[in-house]
């Protein structure tokens, strides 16, 4: 941010069952961070383990940051302005310890480089939220970060998919995964 004004810490609120699976968030994220359309290098990924049950999967910024604690090279740090987890590409060795520590298995490796990818909230102006709002899906919303157990939102894709499938298809949903 060019302006010196202090930004309020934000969080991306998510209403997963509204997601249509259009994947514009992936395009926006990879265009912003990698300057090209690259779905696998996007920090937000849309999973579709059961057809029709699409949902975005990205960092929930847990209040205790288990990934930052386990990093052996101190490549991960917490941004003071936004509260997001920042990855230092030079010191990250791609050991995968943060993936194991994450309660939702959210971080993933960059397909070409040896570094881990975690949502950095685009420095306080998330691109995925913009395109989601533009498409009127309203899955993602920016809300101010408050004292709240955000760790509850960090869940594995299987857990989320199962819950959503049961919500959408009833008892049959458990057998679909």
């Amino acid at each position, binding site marked *: 941010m060019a302006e010196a004004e202090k930004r309020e810490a934000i969080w991306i609120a998510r209403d997963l069952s509204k997601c249509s699976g*259009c*994947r*514009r968030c992936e*395009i926006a994220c*990879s*265009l912003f961070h*990698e*300057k*090209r*359309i*690259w*779905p*696998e*290098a996007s920090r937000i*990924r*849309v*999973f*579709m*383990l*059961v*057809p*029709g049950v699409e949902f975005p*999967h990205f960092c929930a910024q847990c209040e205790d940051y288990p990934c930052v604690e386990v990093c052996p090279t101190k490549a991960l740090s917490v941004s003071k302005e936004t509260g997001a987890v920042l990855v230092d590409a030079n010191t990250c060795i*791609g*050991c*995968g310890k943060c*993936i194991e520590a994450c309660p939702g*298995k*959210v*971080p*993933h*490796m960059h*397909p070409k480089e040896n570094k*881990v990818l975690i949502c950095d909230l685009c420095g306080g102006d998330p691109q995925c939220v913009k395109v989601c709002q533009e498409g009127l899906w309203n899955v993602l919303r920016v809300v101010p970060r408050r004292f709240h157990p955000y760790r509850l939102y960090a869940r*594995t*894709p299987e857990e989320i998919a199962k819950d959503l499938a049961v919500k959408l298809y009833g008892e049959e949903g458990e057998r*679909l*995964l």
Partner: protein
Amino acid sequence: MISGYAGKFLEVDLSTKNIKEVKFSDEILMDYVGGRGLAAKILWDRLGSKWETVDPLGPENLLLFLTGPLTGFFPGGRICVSGKSPQSNGVVGSTVGGEFGVELKCAGYDGIIVAGEAEKPVYLSIKDGDVEIRDAARIWGLDAKRTVAVLTKECRELLKKRYPQRGEWREPSILYIGPAGENKVRTAVVAAKWSHAAGYGGDGGVLGSKKRKGIAVKGTGPLAAGGGKGGVRRDSRPAGLRGTARKRGCAT
């Protein structure tokens, strides 16, 4: 190479288990662009001289899965399935939506050409450059929902085993046939997800006659953008479309 294309096509011969990459010249891509147009060109080149004797449900028929230069650039996500149609004995191009075209582009291929006939049920698993013909006895005979569930699980477990430190793998994109295609019904569809299907021409029967249950693709590369220097510009229309449309009398 002209922009918008990954640059290579995958050719799989199921009879000999021979997997190779084929390339088409820039002139052919400029003239026929991709999808249905390129499918007609490939069929004419390879089967044109013996067209009337080719049995659509026999081993010599080709089945083509082709993308175009705009596939993957939102909202273009369709893939063309083509071959000699068992329904009409003509060239029929049918398209199906879903992520398959995008994943195929990310894996570095513009299309798949399937020839020959497998002895027992197989499915094709593609992860970037790694192409594998895998046994599909377990899923042969299953309906749409079970096929998708079993294939998704199997492919994700396989990827997780091969790349253990990579984190959670997303599901591969799958094109498959159901029991109708396996029994060579002449109106069977090639399906994606649960309810998306390439129905014209009955290409599901061709896939079933080759004893192939489906294809699962996972690509991790970036899309081949037309901007050069790794950027996407507003005027980066794929070159394949630039000259051709005007040559054919369109205003663009």
